[in-house]
């Protein structure tokens, strides 16, 4: 026994453990966010009730502090690689990290009053949001199956808890249950695909998988593995036919969390999908492209057709978000002819602009719900009288979602169409036609909300005094409005340049 132990010790001495060199600057955003999240937890434990009103501010500041190393890394401009290429911080990852941190900040601003005035004001909510955003930062840099899996779960597990946040509300419970069951099932399917990929290629790094599959050629089992992995991410980005959880969860969950799921969590799902498809399946377009083409066409069509008959604004935005995911999937269906950089840059541009306009629309819904106490479109009648500012803002965000110039949304759609049409292939052009028809259908239900706000009279007995909006919500509206306006006009060019840096 002792001899065996001594033998093992002798072996260890022969091969001493060498600590891998860690580039601390490259992981600084994650470390700052981790430290900030821990600080919020400790702060809450020490000050309890007295400190509660400072928790949202502290969380928001943490997100902004984590943005500082993102900016210094961007300024530095070198692609940094850690752990033998499993964790890469390049400009592509940095754009996404900035997007996640800023949307996290806006969501904290939106949550501040909602959580403080609800029955369940707990600082744990902010700790969970920090954890989830941390997962997104890790996701943006992960170039390894293990890293992607852990990041995906770090994003999802806090989100399951937050969806069921209102403990005594049956709808919120149901939202959490549906999201959790579908999410766990999806990640299990994805993992099975990943285990096959690992077994067939002998490595978990996306680059090695890519070259190993290219050497072996396409076999049925590789096709199955690729399709399982894409299905797993299809659930996360709520692509049809894996979207069934989204509207129910969006309606039942607390509204700030709905915005979080519709924007940040969906964006993270897209990042995971992009990383895997563009890095690992780079040489397998004949499997990945037709499958994503089908997902994209089905997602935008079904999402829009169901959105038309919704009477609840949150559900309507949920289905419109499903349709928007279809537009975002479209560039990934033609990555072979255009090169993966062009497709990735179109998706990232769309994600940035979509985050701004959709968060803005949710902020308006939350502000309006302070008066209407309901999400029905009917309750928005006569909003011009009691909240003219909100009416104008909602109009801008909805125009942007419909893709009408000069707001950000048109530029996002323009980039998608440009990528679809440059190759002049049948799949690209046909998808562009489907997307164009869908944009017209989508304009119909966006305009229907506007008709209710601008031209219909308020129902009898509605309080007509001007609505007061709390200042954090005003800040959230201002940030999203500015981003929506500038990305469609003055910043469209610079945004294009920034995403063109994407070094694959």
């Amino acid at each position, binding site marked *: 026994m002792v001899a065996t132990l001594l033998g093992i010790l002798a072996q260890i001495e022969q091969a001493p453990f060498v600590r891998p060199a860690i580039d601390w600057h490259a992981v600084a955003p994650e470390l700052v966010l981790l430290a900030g999240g821990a600080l919020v937890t400790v702060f809450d434990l020490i000050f309890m009730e007295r400190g509660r009103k400072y928790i949202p501010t502290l969380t928001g500041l943490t997100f902004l502090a984590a943005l500082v190393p993102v900016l210094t890394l961007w300024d530095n401009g070198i692609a940094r690689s850690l752990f033998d290429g499993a964790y890469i911080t390049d400009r592509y990852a940095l754009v996404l990290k900035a997007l996640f941190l800023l949307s996290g900040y806006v969501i904290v601003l939106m949550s501040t009053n909602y959580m403080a005035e609800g029955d369940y004001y707990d600082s744990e909510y902010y700790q969970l949001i920090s954890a989830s955003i941390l997962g997104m930062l890790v996701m943006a840099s992960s170039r390894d199956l293990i890293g992607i899996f852990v990041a995906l779960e770090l994003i999802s597990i806090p989100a399951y808890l937050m969806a069921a946040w209102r403990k005594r509300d049956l709808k919120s419970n149901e939202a959490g249950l549906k999201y*959790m069951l579908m999410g766990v099932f999806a990640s*299990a399917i994805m*993992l099975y695909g990943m285990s096959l990929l690992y077994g067939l290629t002998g490595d978990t790094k996306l680059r090695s998988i890519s070259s190993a599959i290219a050497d072996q050629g396409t076999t049925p089992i590789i096709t199955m593995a690729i399709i399982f992995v894409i299905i797993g991410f299809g659930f996360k980005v709520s692509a049809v036919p894996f979207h069934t959880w989204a509207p*129910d969860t969006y309606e039942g969950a607390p509204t700030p969390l709905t915005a979080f799921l519709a924007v940040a969590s969906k964006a993270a799902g897209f990042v995971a999908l992009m990383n895997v498809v563009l890095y690992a399946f780079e040489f397998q377009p004949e499997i990945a492209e037709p499958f994503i083409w089908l997902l994209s066409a089905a997602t935008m069509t079904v999402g829009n057709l169901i959105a038309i008959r919704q009477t609840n604004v949150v*559900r309507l935005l949920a289905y419109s978000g499903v349709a928007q995911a279809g537009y975002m999937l479209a560039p990934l269906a033609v990555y072979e002819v255009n090169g993966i950089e062009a497709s990735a840059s179109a998706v990232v541009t769309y994600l940035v602009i979509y985050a701004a306009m959709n968060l803005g629309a949710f902020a308006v819904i939350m502000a309006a719900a302070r008066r209407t106490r309901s999400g029905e479109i009917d309750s928005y009648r006569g909003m011009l009288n009691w909240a003219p500012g909100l009416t104008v803002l909602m109009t801008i965000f909805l125009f942007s979602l419909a893709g009408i110039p000069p707001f950000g949304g048109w530029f996002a759609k323009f980039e998608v169409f440009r990528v679809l049409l440059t190759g002049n292939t049948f799949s690209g052009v046909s998808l562009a036609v489907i997307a164009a028809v869908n944009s017209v259908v989508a304009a119909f239900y966006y305009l229907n909300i506007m008709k209710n706000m601008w031209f219909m009279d308020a129902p009898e007995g509605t309080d007509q005094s001007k609505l007061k909006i709390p200042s954090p919500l005003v800040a959230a509206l201002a940030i999203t409005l500015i981003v929506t306006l500038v990305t469609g006009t003055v910043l469209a060019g610079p945004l294009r340049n920034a995403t063109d840096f994407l070094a694959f």
Partner: protein
Amino acid sequence: MLLNQFLGLAAILFCIGVYGVLTRRNGVMVLMSIELILNAVNINLVAFGAYQGDVGGQVFALFVIAVAAAEVGVGLAIVLLIYRNRRSIDVSEADLLQG
């Protein structure tokens, strides 16, 4: 090395798990079916890792085990929440949100 037997076992477990998720109406049983799928994944990973003499598969399996524990912990908490409010864990009864 008998790789095929391990892969066959994992494939059967995977199919049983997927069948269970799609047919069971009891929340806890659905979670257990998902555990079956995750264990199929672990068998796959460890078998492939041993076959190729690479520790990567075992490391991946360790991560899957740890994360699955967290996932099921959260899942059971949500099922318990439903049970407290409804006195039932039948997932088909959770139908307040539709359309």
